[in-house]
């Protein structure tokens, strides 16, 4: 069936069967590959996107539930105030290793800073718990979020 989406501020229509995860519509239909597949069962966070500004796991979001919502992916973070600050902090601290989890980490970090502009280390741990990084870049993620918070405050 035809489904209308608003992705990164742009209206799009895609052909997809109901029950198709948003992740695969973004990757396979729209060919936007910044959003990653890591587990498919909502336990790694690699596929995190924003739905109406809130981080969700796109591997467990059915396409019909995303119809009409504002969907934002990593590709739009450069134009997003908090997203750009997080990206800058990530580069300053060289957070990434293999990098495969980092789109999801950044989408979650932006979600956290949106609701809590100055999170403590404990608050970061609580919020970011579901974003796995097999390269274990965790302490730089923690530092990166705090650095982004500083950048935004300045």
């Amino acid at each position, binding site marked *: 069936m035809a489904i209308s989406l608003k992705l990164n501020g742009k209206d799009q229509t895609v052909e997809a069967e109901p029950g198709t995860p948003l992740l695969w519509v973004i990757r396979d239909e729209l060919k936007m590959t910044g959003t990653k597949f890591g587990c498919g069962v909502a336990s790694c966070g690699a596929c995190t996107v924003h739905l109406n500004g809130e981080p969700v796991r796109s591997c467990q979001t059915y396409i019909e539930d995303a119809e009409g919502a504002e969907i934002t992916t990593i590709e739009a973070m450069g134009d997003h105030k908090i997203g750009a600050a997080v990206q800058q902090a990530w580069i300053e601290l060289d957070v990434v290793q*293999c990098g495969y989890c*980092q789109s999801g980490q950044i989408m979650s970090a932006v979600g956290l800073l949106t609701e809590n502009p100055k999170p403590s280390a404990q608050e970061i741990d609580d919020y970011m718990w579901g974003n796995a990084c*097999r*390269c274990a*870049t965790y302490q730089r993620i*923690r530092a990166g979020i705090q650095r982004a918070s500083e950048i935004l405050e300045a």
Partner: protein
Amino acid sequence: MTINTSRRGFLKSAAAAGAVLVVGVRPDGALAASGSRSMLTPFVQIGSDGSVTAIVKHFEMGQGPSTGLTTLIAEEMGLTMDQIGYDFAPSDPQVYNNTLFGPMQGTGGSTAMANSFLQYRQAGAAAREMLLQAAAQAWGTEASALSLQDGVISGAGNSAPLGEFVEAAAQFDAPADPPLKDPSEFRLIGNPDVRRLDGAAKGNGSAMFAMDIVRPNQMIAMIARPEQQRATAISVDASGAADIKGFIDAQILPNAAGVAVFAETTWAAMQARDAISVEWDTTNAETRSSSDIEAEIRAALDAEPTYNVNEADMDAVRAAVDGAETVIEETFYFPLLAHAPMEPLNCTIEETAEGVILLHDGCQFPTIPHGAIAEFFGLPFDKVQIKTVLAGGSFGRRATPQADYQMEAAMAFSLTDRSRPVHLVWSREDDLRSGQYRPAMGHKVRVGLDTSGAIVGWEHRIAGQSILKGTPFEAMLVQNGIDFASVEGTFDSPYQIPSASFGLTDTPKATSTLWWRAVGHTHTAYVMEVMMDMAARAAGIDPVEFRLAYLTGDEADQTRKAGVLKLVAEKANWGNPPEGRSQGIAVHKSFNSYVAEVVEISGTPEDGIKIEKVTCAVDCGIAVNPDIIKAQMEGGIGYGIGHNMRDQITLTNGVVDQFNFPDYEPLRISDIGEIEVHIVPSAEAPTGVGEPGTPPAAPALANAIAAASDLRIASLPMDDNGVFFA
């Protein structure tokens, strides 16, 4: 992001019109240069527009060689890091081989920097000398009067960008032995402010991993697999998938090890794979359970070892231990572990208009799939090409001696008419259940102490599943029947232990076994360092002092290992943890680097243990990129701790019990506090950093738990021992 765009620009312009100077290294080690792009194997390529591109022969799984090797060229050419880009080398085992592996291109054993350090500097230095020579000719002066700095050649009253001399420089032969910079002149090597070259692209979604390759008109293939290893497909009924939109076909692989399911999209392939039914022949299928594997290993530890690893007088060692004042004894067990890199395995295969089979892959040992695919299709080696792209982690997994997933792609492709590229995709379930694991291993150690607490005998037996036997690496790494990967880190430890014996017995494999970040050291470091800790406590001697007593020699092995141990003790304030905390320490040499770690915990096993802080000291020779070294230590520590806390792969009647991350729980951000890394200043040649951070982490944690509670954990994972992690 701007940095990234400009770098892209460099790469593109390097491929565009204009003169070019390429410098490479021939198979015999001699430098070679050319003004032609048809020299297909350069190490550095310089365009007349001033663009410089390093050609990186190692693949990038996050460990940093794309930045590291590019830094070496930039250093010798006097460039800043934003004046150079990089590209991955094509597959060529003669030119881009790992010089420590022979004629094979490969990234493993933490050798990328060790085998490239001189090679890439020489290529950069040769390019610099040729450009200076060309400028000297143009200006009618001596090359020795000129210098190349920040992309500009100047001296003798002249100054011009290096691009102007590219065409003239390309007419010269490469110098045989160009002078390398003295370490005192280094601006980039050792500079903590040099950032990763892949940082921006990996933060904005533009980095292309193998999974992100989309070839025009490609199909997705997933493989339906049997539950048990070595079962084979007899027939497939795909009628259940007929209504799935995008489903194309399902066919048994040529080796019958699975069924290839083809579809237009990944989601359709996933659904179709669930919807088809396959009949399996389980006559030769694996049926053992983990309990059987463990029983085999424990029985082997109780018998005389098959191999005497260090040719010790075993009876004399046993007598020394038996006659000791105090005997400490422990039996250890290590379960199967999966690598679980964040990016599930995948690759894309296609046939070009020229009849070349082209593989898009981020793999550790391109030479292996290269040869295997050529053989499978009956093609000469040069009719197969590999395009290396970024890998989302590997930890050893993208380096199987059988080229497992690449051959699945090749076999699936052979079932088609080859008109469409095939992107083979694994799910996380495929990854965890694929049967390629860190082997299950056991150790039994008896240590005898005299009345002063000194070691008088060390009797050590190892039993478990060989990684290398039956693989092409056997000839190189198995000697007199002893698989080096089963015993490394024990008999060759820098500790000077009097009267020690090391015995090995192989036990049968129920799954395939594969190197896993730090290979044998993943279990040997645990055993050595927990035993040292137990011996120190039994002797009533501080664990640092106790270890130092066996590192008094003046060989580098002892002085460097003692050096990191002392440094970490100082930095972690060893012996004086904050109120309510306990410390554990471990030190280990692996991949020619020395790493010591102190883990500081709070809590108790019953109420919950929290890892508050890890302090690390590393001696890896010259620190080419100190920040990447720190990152590798941080990651290596997390990898070692995370798995040993709570992960294992288990089998029930040959069927893997785990499916996905919920039952192979990754280390989470809340599991681990601050990690502080200290690098020992050194002028020695650079050694490994990708793996050596991992081995000491779990024993340091185990020793901290023992300090907090007297609980000694000898069977992994830790949470099987009644330990609760807060």
